[in-house]
């Protein structure tokens, strides 16, 4: 329907966008466009602005200059065409509430009144849960589910209202490699079935390699968008990290190294276990040599 008509309009368009938070430039003069139906992996070191970019697309942060357009319209808070999955909070891990009620809280959740579901809303919730294959999980308390199972229900919630753009903020955090793969494959499948655009942020490139169409790498206020070969190379990443970066390929895996150090791995180890982080604060210097887990390279 509308999807056919809007294929020519990009899902996301940034025109010379500058975003400064707390006196620091998160993005400076960034221009890029993401097409409809594209699966974009969003990467970059901590504090590079992955969450900030998503919050800007959601209209929660205003750029200090430039224009952000989402599906042909200016980025505005409460845009029903955007589905959003924030980083998993610890609260959900201890909830005794069942998954169904958790997902259902998102349907017209911004409207005043009692959270009573009519038949149409119940149907929409059931469809979203079915879409991610979580029907068998929905009756169980959220706190009893594994991290991967909870992510499934979070994804269902993000899909309520049939969004045309899906923003997923670090869905792989604190998941083991197997569940990481399951979540990536699930998102890819749903994305292709619905023909929607996806921004999927992650600390590590490798879990996304098979699924993503293009990669958006953020760092140092800059952004590079392109195919893996165009972006994941020494010159481009050195500019984004502001230090000399080597890209090493071993069997179909790609390691981004700085001075013999796997920078993505480091970022992951820092971030793991944290709640949510608006990409502000600590600008870790990943170049310096700290004690490093000798098993660090053996992931996935």
């Amino acid at each position, binding site marked *: 329907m509308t999807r056919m008509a809007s294929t020519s309009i990009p899902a996301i368009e940034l025109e010379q966008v500058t975003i400064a938070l707390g006196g620091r430039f998160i993005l400076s003069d960034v221009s890029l466009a993401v097409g409809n139906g594209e699966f974009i992996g969003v990467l970059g070191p901590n504090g590079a602005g992955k969450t900030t970019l998503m*919050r800007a697309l*959601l*209209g*929660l942060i205003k750029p200090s200059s430039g224009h952000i357009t989402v599906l042909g319209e200016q980025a505005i*808070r*409460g845009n029903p065409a*955007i589905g*959003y*999955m*924030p*980083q998993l*909070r610890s*609260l*959900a891990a*201890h*909830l*005794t*509430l*069942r998954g169904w*009620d*958790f997902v*259902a*809280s*998102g349907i*017209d*959740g*911004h*409207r*005043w*009144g*009692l*959270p009573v579901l009519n038949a149409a809303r119940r149907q929409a919730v059931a469809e979203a849960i079915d879409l991610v294959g979580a029907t068998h999980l929905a*009756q*169980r*308390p959220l*706190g*009893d589910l594994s991290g991967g199972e909870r992510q499934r229900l979070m994804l269902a*919630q*993000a899909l309520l209202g049939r969004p045309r753009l899906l923003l997923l903020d670090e869905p792989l955090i604190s998941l083991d490699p197997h569940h990481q793969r399951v979540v990536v494959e699930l998102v890819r499948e749903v994305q292709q079935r619905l023909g929607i655009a996806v921004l999927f942020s992650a600390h590590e490139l490798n879990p996304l390699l098979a699924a993503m169409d293009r990669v958006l790498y953020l760092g140092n206020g800059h952004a590079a968008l392109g195919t893996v070969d165009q972006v994941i190379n020494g010159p481009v990443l050195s500019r984004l990290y502001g230090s000399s970066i080597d890209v090493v390929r071993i069997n179909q895996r790609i390691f981004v190294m700085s001075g013999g150090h796997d920078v993505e791995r480091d970022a992951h180890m820092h971030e793991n276990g944290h709640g*949510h982080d608006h990409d502000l604060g600590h600008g870790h210097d990943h170049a310096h040599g700290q004690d490093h887990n000798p098993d660090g390279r053996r992931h996935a």
Partner: protein
Amino acid sequence: MITRMAKITTLMGVVMLDYDFMQHAFAAAGIVAIVAGVVGFFLVLRGQTFAGHALSHVGFAGATGAILIGGSPLSGLIAFTLLAGIGMGALGDKLSGRDVAIGVILSLSLGLGLLFLHFFTAYATQATALLFGNVFGVSNGTLLVLFGIGAAALIALGVIARPLLFASLQPELAEAKGVSLRLVSVLFLAIVALAVSACAQVVGVLLVFALMVGPAATAQRLTSRLGLGVALAAGLALVEAWLGLVLAYYTDWPASFWITALSALAYFASLTGNRRAAIPAH
């Protein structure tokens, strides 16, 4: 046999309810229990039980201050808890992780209340009534006020329930969808303040946990369904409050003691009867 027993029970019940103060107590406890159970469900869901506790302590200073200047303790209680609730909601995230600051204000409030009472002559009776409740001393007027604040709290909760639930479970997503987290938080803590004020009339400011947190936490242990959980929290609070009154009537022990005992009993029973209890929540 059964009919005879029923007759005796009815007879005892009739005798008990012949007294005006018992009728008032049952009505007051009924109103308060339902409000506390429903509001408490969201308080527990949001992990804000400490805020509820702090509000009741601030209320103590308000109530005693009102006595000192010749006002009614209930109006002082309501005014102070409401102001504190709105203030806490407005501060929002700035208060998270500030348990020490809240704790200091909490004890300062009790200290201030003590000072206010020091200047007042009917010291002990008032202090005990405020701290531990005086459900058998509820007047017609108080009952009316309780009904008013109870209705106001429930109606307001009904209006904000959907965004409140959304904001409690998925704050970032709710914010993105246009929910004002701060507004929801302020309104909710104002509602909590009303519930706490009402609750304090029955079990006293020190024991509001018994009706606001106990039944709600028990209900969340027993069911994972939202609607059922809210109903169960209200139902448990009602049963605990009324049964507490009956036990107090027959034993002559304080009603507040029985209500806290029943609340604790139900909560610990739900812990042992539920396999999730084996997993420590950290």
